[in-house]
């Protein structure tokens, strides 16, 4: 199965499907569906956005196989910005 790492061409297609599904989920949540509380919906929409960003970084930017410092910088950006935006959203 380790060979998948060297031929991930078909995997990016699956990543695209996940990203499209996540986009439609956010759209559904953002148009007043799903969770009852607007704050909970807002936080969930932000979390989904950053999960999507991690997918774009890891699979489309190919950071999954990039040198560790770059991966750490990217993952650090995702975590820090996601938490900061949730904090600004809830406390702002």
């Amino acid at each position, binding site marked *: 199965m380790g060979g998948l790492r060297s031929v991930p061409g078909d995997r990016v297609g699956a990543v695209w499907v996940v990203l499209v599904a996540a986009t439609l989920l956010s759209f559904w949540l953002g148009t007043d569906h799903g969770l009852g509380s607007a704050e909970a919906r807002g936080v969930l*929409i932000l979390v989904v956005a950053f999960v999507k960003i991690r997918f774009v970084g890891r699979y489309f930017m190919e950071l999954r196989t990039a040198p560790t410092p770059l991966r750490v910088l990217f993952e650090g950006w995702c975590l820090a910005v996601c938490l900061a935006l949730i904090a600004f959203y809830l406390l702002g």
Partner: protein
Amino acid sequence: MATISDGDTQTAAPRPHRHLPGEEGTWVLILGDMTVFAVFFATYLYYRGEQPELFAESAQSLEPGFGVINTLLLLTSSLCVVIGIRAVRRRRTRLPPALFAGALACGLGFSAVKFVEYRELLSAGITPATNSFFMYYFVLTGLHFFHLVLGMGVLVYLIRVSRLPELGARRLAFMEGGACFWHMVDLLWIVLFPLLYLVR
């Protein structure tokens, strides 16, 4: 399993080959840009907190459908670019230009949707001077659009270069960096879209 029966347990779990996509300078630019946008996103939410009713009411004037279509266009363009770069590495010369052109078509589609959206807002008398929400809306989407235009320039470069029969390592690194810049345009929109259109 035959390949790992020589007793060398190290080979049982193949170590991934670490590869920097693009040049270091490109990543300084990309991470720098992402950080500038992060500050803008936080600033937007800070001012939203000052006038939550105004921001929520103003956001109702936006059509989330436009944002969804544009997200799907950019995701599809990113898929074309990543498959294109992989085909370039395999020294294919026909497939990559077509895929990069497909990505460019998605970028043009995004521009057309944005044009229609701006026109609808402006014809309804909504401008950046209307209120704080629309000031942020136009500045953030305008700044993102500027990056999209730069990215489309990069895609034109990728289309032209990927036709060449021989690519040196340096040119390939430049192409990878350009591809990552395009993915950044996609990535920034992934935050911008929910922030402006969906988060209530």
